[in-house]
């Protein structure tokens, strides 16, 4: 276990270092930020002063070296546009995204897993078919469309929830549901497929022969065996949502990192882009590490 953790820690650090190279290089390939960050009347002298103030007049290697040194000090630079520490900008936006991601994932699991379990355990063909349709349909529907339809139905026609914004518990419902439509359908589909396979196993057959209650067989034994791919999927999906549910955040005016990073990319605000990418990447890797540890809990065979 300790060996696994150490190995993963080293891999994480190497991956993060490679990410810094990529994000640093790619942001600078997008072009000169002064053309977007400074007003048109800014003189060449003003632009030169701006570049000098932010070290943009140095060559790339010198800039990268300075970036790394500051990174180890916990300083990701100052936002060109907002004149605030980039790490603060990123962390302020991360909170709402994390909350939305958790709400979306919780709703996805609550909707998707029962659906998948019912579809897997039912003997009725139409139920199984429904499960497969739900699995395809949910993933095919674009989040933008789903969000706007939900707003139209549940905020305008039936004024149950706010149309957009952030703040109260009600504000979470529609964006979380928008995220959940695609994710829950994938969970349902994955659960159905893996559970059906698990239910065909010999040990399940043995348990039935032994007279164990069906619900116990399904939930305690079969589902546990079917859960490894589901856990992998959930970890990946959470990371994807965390990376910025950009479309959902835009439709619902959610002040998360999706919005922030789009603004920063379009505005060539390098420090904010770098900060968000690094923080998100770190979180993503921690989530994957947590998923790996969960495997060990679920499958004792992996502990050896």
């Amino acid at each position, binding site marked *: 276990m300790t060996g696994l953790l150490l190995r993963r820690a080293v891999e994480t650090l190497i991956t993060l270092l490679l990410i810094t190279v990529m994000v640093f290089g790619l942001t600078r390939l*997008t*072009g*000169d930020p002064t*053309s*977007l*960050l*400074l*007003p*048109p*009347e*800014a*003189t*060449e*002298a*003003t632009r030169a*002063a*701006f570049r000098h*103030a932010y070290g943009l007049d140095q060559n790339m290697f010198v800039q990268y070296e300075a970036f790394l040194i500051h990174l180890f000090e916990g300083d990701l630079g100052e936002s060109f*546009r*907002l*004149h605030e520490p980039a790490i603060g*900008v990123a962390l*302020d*936006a991360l909170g709402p995204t994390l909350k939305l991601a958790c709400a979306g994932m919780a709703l996805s699991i609550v909707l998707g897993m029962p659906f998948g379990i019912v579809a897997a*355990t039912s*003997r009725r063909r139409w139920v199984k078919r429904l499960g497969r349709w739900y699995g395809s349909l949910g993933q095919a529907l674009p989040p933008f469309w789903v969000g*706007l339809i939900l*707003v*139209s139905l549940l*905020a*305008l026609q039936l*004024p*149950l*929830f*706010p*149309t*957009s*914004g*952030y*703040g*109260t*518990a*009600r504000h979470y419902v529609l964006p979380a549901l928008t995220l959940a439509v695609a994710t829950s359908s994938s969970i349902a589909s994955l659960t159905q497929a893996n559970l059906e396979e698990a239910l065909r196993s010999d040990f399940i057959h043995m348990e039935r022969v032994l007279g164990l*209650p*069906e*619900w116990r067989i399904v939930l305690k034994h079969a589902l546990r065996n079917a859960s490894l791919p589901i856990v992998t999927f959930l970890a990946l999906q959470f990371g994807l949502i965390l990376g910025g549910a950009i479309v959902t955040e*835009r*439709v*619902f*005016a959610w*002040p998360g990192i999706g*919005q*922030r990073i789009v*603004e920063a990319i*379009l*505005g*060539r605000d390098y420090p904010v882009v770098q900060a968000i990418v690094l923080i998100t990447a770190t979180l993503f890797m921690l989530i994957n590490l947590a998923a790996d540890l969960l495997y060990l809990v679920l499958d004792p065979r992996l502990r050896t």
Partner: protein
Amino acid sequence: MTARAQWRLASRRGFLATSTAAASTLVLDALPSPARAAQDELRIAIGADIASADPDHYTAWNDYWVYGNVFEGLYAPDAQGNLAPALAQSHEVSGDGLTHTFTLREGVLFHNGDPVTAEDVVFSLKRSLDPATQNQRAALIGDNIVRFEAADARRFVVHLKAIDAETVAKLSLYWQVKPRKYIETVGDAGFARKPVGTGPYELLERQPNQFIRLRAFDRYWGAKPKTAEVTLRIVPEEQSRVAQVMAAEAQAATPISPVLAARLAKMPNLNLVRVPSLTNVVLFLNSRHEQLRKKAVRQAICFAIDKPAMLQSLMLGYAVPEELWCTSAQPGCSLDGVEPYTYDPVRAKRLLAEADFDFAKPLRFVGMAPGRVAASKETCEAIAESLKRVGIAVDLQIMEFGAWNALKTAKEKDPSIAMIYATAPDPSRDVAYKLLVNTRSDLATSWVFDAANDGMLARMNSFTDQAERTAFLNQILRHLHDEALLLPLWANDTLFVTSRNVVFDVPPYLAYTILADVALA
């Protein structure tokens, strides 16, 4: 026992399912309803957040939702949009035009109760021009200033290098007075978090990317705002902004695109408000391009484009056509004696033939991708199509705004670009700023390369007599028109969708909205 029977008998699950449904209903009922606006609170859904509440960190006109309503300069736009005394109650210019003396209005207070003095004005200008502040408009405001001082508690004096008719505009529209004592106490970061100005509204609260709350300043020196509280909600998606108005979560939303506006105008519970603006849309014709060196070719391009048809079909009428690069609201915009470029493809072909135009070589035309300016891509496509109909091959490249801007403001212009679509907002009624920034050939932002125009621009602000200056501005506009150095298309309206109980009495032709003029009926 079959599996299904076991499921049915799982009464615990049945109970759970039923109770969950009941609990959900109870929870939803217990949750607070979406907040509805109080009677004296105006909520406006806007498309983007400001960059900073500190006016010395201006990045775009969007920031003026705060700067234009929480802060003031020495003069300010009146109900007609003309500059009128604000923090300065009067202004004198010396005989040689180089010394401007502003007498400050008595009894003006900052939002924290501190009185405004000439020392605050001096401090504010020093701060704006200090390189450490990184005010990106420092050069615009201060390049022509030799020195400035407080003559006494109420008089502020500025000494200029050369006569500049834009002095009052520069110290009114692009710069604001800030409180010296307060900033020295809280520091720059504290000031940006909780700004204090002299405007009709004070900033109560700001959550980045969420909302900005403003409250009418009860000790404001001028006319009290018509609405006690204004909340600006940041809603980037246009459909979501409209949804907020439809759900009564906001009473107004902007910006709205022409296509959506046309649909909303038919809805019974909504008002569509058109505020004419000075967001000019223009086609620059690169006179340094090998094919466009001849005036006849440039004029042919102007005759080949059917502007009225494009305005109707692409902007759906939500724009004001322009012949000279100005609107009728702007001084110097007289069309007397101007021969318009009316749509005439026959004449265009004739001019091209007379100029020996090489039809085999396509003209490279750089346009702007959608998102920033209404119908930008469609307008460029329509222009390209119009030119093809007179035989001009066009290589149209639609670029994302960042790439477009980098190309447009490049110091060394790409000689292969024949035409470039652009917007050039006038921040005020005076066309001088726009002309200078966009047509003086040594500036990176200019795509006009004409020595005669440069000569006229150098004299443009040196007039002390307003009528003479107006006539001179008209000459510059005519020159640009007659030489076909650029083709003005139109000035986009700023579109708001509002609920029926909102009265928008804002001055037209301003670069920002004066919230004090918006009322709830």
